């Protein structure tokens, strides 16, 4: 799933200002990358990580995708789980964020 404005709309955060939306999206993407990366790192060995480190600067997405499929075949599940977890957390946090934003704006 793409982490964009639609993602925030789906979570009920469409009322945020454009600037805040962008900040929020950046924070979500960053967190998601960290979590997914953290989980994948724990299941890869040193050689695999060295291998990835050697090819990560390559612009060839196909090679990278293949390497991922080969070394972390469950990455789609991990991505889906982390994404769902973040959505759940944001849903719980979202209304408070919006109301606080309103109060800040009205203050």
């Amino acid at each position, binding site marked *: 799933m793409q982490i964009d404005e639609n993602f925030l709309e789906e979570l009920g955060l469409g009322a945020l200002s454009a600037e805040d939306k962008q*900040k929020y999206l950046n924070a979500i993407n960053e967190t998601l990358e*960290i979590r*997914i990366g953290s989980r994948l790192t724990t299941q*890869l060995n040193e050689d695999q990580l060295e291998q990835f480190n050697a090819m*990560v600067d390559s612009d060839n*997405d196909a090679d990278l*995708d293949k390497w991922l499929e080969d070394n972390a075949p469950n990455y789609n599940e991990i991505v889906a789980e982390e994404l769902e977890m973040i959505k759940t957390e944001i849903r719980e946090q979202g209304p408070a964020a919006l109301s606080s934003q309103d109060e800040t704006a009205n203050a």
Partner: protein
Amino acid sequence: METNKGTIEIEGPPAVAGPRVEALGDVDDSREVEVSLSSAKDTMERVGEGVLEASVADTPRETDGSEAFELLGSNDQESGIRNTPETLAPPHLQKIEEKIAEHQGGIAKNQEEIAKHEKEIKDLNAQKEFFSVDNLLDLRDKYETNYSKALDSVGIGRVMRLDDALKSSISESLKANLVEDYIQTGRDESDPRQVEPEVREELLRIISLPLDKIKAMSGEAAAEPVPSATSEEAASGEGSEDVSAETTAAVSETGESKPAATRIEVREAQEAEAPEAAAPSTDEGGASGKPLTDAGRYEQVRDWNIADEEREASDYAPDLQRNEARIKELDQERRQNNQQWFKKEIQRLSWILAPVPDKWLSEGMAKSREVFSQLDEPQKKLMRRLGALAARANLRKKKAAE
């Protein structure tokens, strides 16, 4: 030598009253000419050829002599008279100036007087307004309202009202007895100054009694037939059951026949016959057994009021306790609500004050980022890239599938 004869007529300016100047008489060698200026008479003296020196006498006027002489001089060619207004002007103008100064002083005094009177009028109007019936009624209402509020605020308003009610009740009792006594004695009830000392004494004794007794007596007085015992009734011993019978007894004891027996006399008879019965009344009024003084009665009324208040207070005690318990409950509830509110408010404020977007991160998200921040840079870089690759690959895969 010039000879000037005839009349010179000159019209002066409008400000000059009667601006008509006549030069009369022969001025040949007489060296004199009379000038009539309105009501004033001026004398002009010839002092040389064609020169007249004028002196102005008796000129209490609004007219201006100098102007008149200027006008006169304007006819110089015809009259041959030359005048020197300057010789006339100084004393005349001086008088005018003195007069003006005098009038100005008078005007200033008048203005002072006017200002003084205006102030008096203003003050009187203010007084008039203040003492107007409407204003006085308004003030009275305000005073009564404020007075009542003030009494209520210190908790004695109710006692005072009770006191007033009691006074009113006593007053009614007094009035009933007064009327009765006047009827019995044949006096004019509209003139309370005619109350006999005995009657007054009796009334004072009555007023010193407890209220319920006064009320009872008042009721009796209304219910009792007026003991206007005639001499026949007194002599025969007939009459109403209680009072008249006693009246008869009193009469029979003294052996005198009275045209009418007053209530006081009846009571005296009662006391004479049964002093033990009369004693409690006075004992109730005062410890000394004598009728109470005004101060004593006041204290008694006050004591009754206090007793009433205490009785009511004890009646309300259970309600009071319940209310106090309820107040404590509500207070506790209020404290809890306040605590919750403060807690929530602190959270809200903390959230508002936190930097964006950190404040929007869930605890889990925040923790992930915190753990991540503790890694060294190569690890961070590797982890981020691996996560980003997986996310992008996942997205690409989904798009491809779509």
